[in-house]
């Protein structure tokens, strides 16, 4: 067996996250690679949540459609999610089910009966998982002790007792599940937000303002919690408009700054993105996508804001839009986004989504030095008279900050002259100033990386994708190749300005997107004069799996 998939299902407040993260620790200690993703309702208690783990010897960072083991914490969740179980799968839950190999077990009842409190159901479930997979109980007990170190002795002991109890139940059940062979490394796991946060701090960011909005909130939360190490000043703003304007003020004054939000908050920021473009104030904006329109599905995933991000802002001005594919790319592209934002003095947008923000990816290591921080502040002693918006051949005016030298620095949202003062001189000042800003695109475009190409030379079909769908697309492509289908992949992580690139002529191009209107296809048709007609789209709020891509590929093949 190359991989084993487990789904934990229950309700908000039942602790699926804690079970998942503690169990991940145990698996890491056994040198397994792990991928986990979750879907949950927008509520604090109740409803239905699921947490999916995929265990393998090597990192395989993409979701599966069905699981080998479904562990349900309550009967309603068991009913709702039974369809996620493979026909050969094993069902553990409080209700009978004759369709699957199953064990009727209510962790809550057991916890109440044996430990006097149903709260310890999680510890029992963890023990059960550890037992059924023949993993070392001691490693679980250590993880529990660490997690509850600050709690009372009674709480610690009950958790340990619960784990032992669950472990015993698993051994007594004589049920059997086989794990893949363990890997060679102690892998580490990370979700998207810490990688973005560390990329930002590595790039020299020391200021972030944001308004809480799922699924972006984890980013400022991580920066706040790691303030001691990262020294990033974080501020919770009254709204997203304030958040981006706070970041612009700090950036103008000389601190690398960022903000983060999701669709609705991004909509509020749009006027200020235009302000960043006009005042040439660098800023990095992380847009963690969720399905819209309006409030949409707050806790689900989508790639539906691609065109909105690229065309965000009234008027015409250059910006950068990246769509990193995984945490490693989030780290690297965040550094690059800061470098480009500050070199070209413009807004840079990093597209991520709920799937990338919340899923745990396994790594042996990052390409830590793939991008390094670069700084572009001008030297004040070079100027006799300083002009913030000096006309230059590249369009990049030397950037100084207020209060750092004898030179005065002005910025204006009105069309302005070289000093930043309001102008109504149309042909002499306003027009060349607009051209100055747009001129920056020429050099900027050369810095944008072309897409990743996989097996395109002999391909009859090519999947074109962007952002967080990458690993699922690659897994689908690999699988199709094993079936003899000549399929390749072109994957974009840097989307605007569009890089110089020539698409293969003789393959059928199919975009694969987590949205309903094939926005990537539209963008590429516009930017490269293509005529893309085929897309594999998913827009129900859940991430794409290789299985679905494979099925939809078959459908496209049958149509043509």
């Amino acid at each position, binding site marked *: 067996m190359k991989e084993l998939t487990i789904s934990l299902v229950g309700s908000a407040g039942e602790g699926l996250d804690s079970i998942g993260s503690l169990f991940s620790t145990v698996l890491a200690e056994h040198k397994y690679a792990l991928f986990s993703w979750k879907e949950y309702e927008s509520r604090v208690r109740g409803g239905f949540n699921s947490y999916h783990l995929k265990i393998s010897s090597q990192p395989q960072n993409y979701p599966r459609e069905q699981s080998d083991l479904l562990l349900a914490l309550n009967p309603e969740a068991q009913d709702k999610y039974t369809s996620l179980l493979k026909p050969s799968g094993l069902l553990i839950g409080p209700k009978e089910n004759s369709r699957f190999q199953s064990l009727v077990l209510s962790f809550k009842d057991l916890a109440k009966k044996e430990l006097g409190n149903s709260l310890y159901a999680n510890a029992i479930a963890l023990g059960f998982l550890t037992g059924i997979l023949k993993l070392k109980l001691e490693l679980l007990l250590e993880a529990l002790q660490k997690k509850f170190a600050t709690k009372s002795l009674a709480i610690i002991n009950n958790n340990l007792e619960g784990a032992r109890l669950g472990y015993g139940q698993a051994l007594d059940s004589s049920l059997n599940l086989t794990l893949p062979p363990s890997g060679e490394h102690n892998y580490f796991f990370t979700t998207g937000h810490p990688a973005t946060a560390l990329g930002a*701090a590595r790039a020299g960011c020391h200021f972030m303002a944001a308004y809480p909005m799922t699924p972006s909130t984890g980013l400022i939360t991580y920066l706040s919690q790691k303030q001691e190490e990262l020294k990033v000043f974080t501020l919770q703003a*009254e709204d997203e408009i*304030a958040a981006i*304007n706070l970041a612009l003020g*700090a950036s103008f004054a000389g601190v690398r700054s960022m903000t983060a939000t999701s669709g609705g908050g991004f909509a509020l920021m749009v006027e200020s993105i235009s302000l960043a473009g006009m005042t040439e104030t660098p800023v990095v904006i992380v847009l963690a996508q969720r399905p819209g329109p309006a409030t949409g599905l707050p806790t689900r995933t989508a790639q539906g804001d691609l065109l909105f991000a690229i065309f965000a802002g009234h008027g015409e001005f250059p910006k950068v839009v990246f769509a990193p594919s995984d945490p490693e790319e989030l780290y690297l592209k965040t550094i690059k986004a800061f470098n480009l934002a500050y070199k070209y003095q413009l807004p840079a947008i990093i597209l991520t989504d709920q799937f990338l923000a919340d899923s745990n990816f396994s790594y042996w290591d990052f390409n830590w030095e793939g991008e390094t921080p670069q700084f572009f502040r001008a030297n004040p002693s070079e100027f006799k008279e300083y002009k913030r918006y000096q006309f230059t051949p590249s369009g990049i005016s030397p950037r100084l900050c207020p209060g750092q030298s004898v030179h005065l620095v*002005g*910025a204006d949202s009105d069309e302005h002259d070289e000093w930043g003062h309001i102008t109504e001189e149309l042909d002499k000042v306003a027009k060349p100033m607009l051209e100055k800003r747009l001129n920056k695109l020429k050099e900027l475009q050369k810095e944008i990386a072309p897409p990743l190409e996989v097996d395109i030379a002999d391909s009859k079909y090519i999947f074109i994708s962007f952002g967080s769908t990458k690993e699922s697309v690659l897994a689908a492509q690999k699988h199709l190749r094993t079936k003899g289908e000549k399929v390749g992949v072109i994957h974009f992580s840097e989307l605007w300005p569009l890089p110089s690139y020539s698409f293969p002529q003789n393959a059928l191009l199919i975009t694969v997107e987590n949205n309903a209107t094939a926005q990537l296809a539209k963008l590429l048709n516009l930017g490269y004069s293509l005529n893309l007609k085929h897309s594999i789209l998913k827009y129900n709020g859940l991430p794409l799996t290789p299985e679905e891509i494979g099925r939809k590929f078959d459908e496209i093949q049958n149509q043509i």
Partner: protein
Amino acid sequence: MKSKTKFSNNVPSQWCPGCPNHLILKALQNGLEELELTPQEVCLVSGIGQAAKLPHYLKGNFFNGLHGRALPVATGIKLANPKLKVIVTTGDGDCYGEGGNHFLHTLRRNPDITLLVHNNSIYALTKGQASPTTPKGEKRALNPRGVEDEPLNPLALALIQGTGFVARCSALEIEHLKEVIKEAINYPGLAYVDILQPCISWLKPSLETLKKETFFLSHDPQDFEQALKIALDPAQKWGLGIIYKNPWPKPVLGEGFYQHFSLEQLTHLPPLDLTIAQNLLKAH
């Protein structure tokens, strides 16, 4: 008062000839000079409107941003570099209307900045519409039967939200205005000055009203209860002076962070060390 100071520049004004905005500018320029500040130490921040053009006419650093958004920009600048004297020049439409939410939360947040609101109770640049401080019943461009909304009481709002320095001035009393501005700039924390300013094009409030009705307050500005009474009393709506000055200024925004890390500016911090990034991620 001097008409030429080290804060004068040669940028031609777009204000109406004779507009009291010129007087506010003069009071600010003279105040800054008397405080012995340099243009390099000063950063003016504004949004949109006639008052928001002021930063262009004063020699200093400036950020003239979007309508209503001066306060968050100013707060960001001050947090990045506390050595800058950050002054917001804004109007009643910009600050109380479009930027009302930022006004409210800046009062709570207490950044160490100075907020000067040119309050003429009218939208002058867009040709005579009511503003949040237009008195009820007044006929304005879009209110042929008179304004129906209650006017905002920004001074009372500032007081009940704990603002440490709250003042009302008149653009026509520029010596007094200059002195209050100086005290506001020196106050540690948010210092807010509402400046009554007649609009000479739309004649509201009229020059005559302001000349006739204003008077100087004589209460103890450290007395909060008295200050609140004045702010709420319609009979004292033309009273000028420092309405409240908290003698025990509260900690300013960012102070805790700066003290904890013994910082002078955020602007001089190096990027995160690579090994720290590696350790944090692997520990995650």
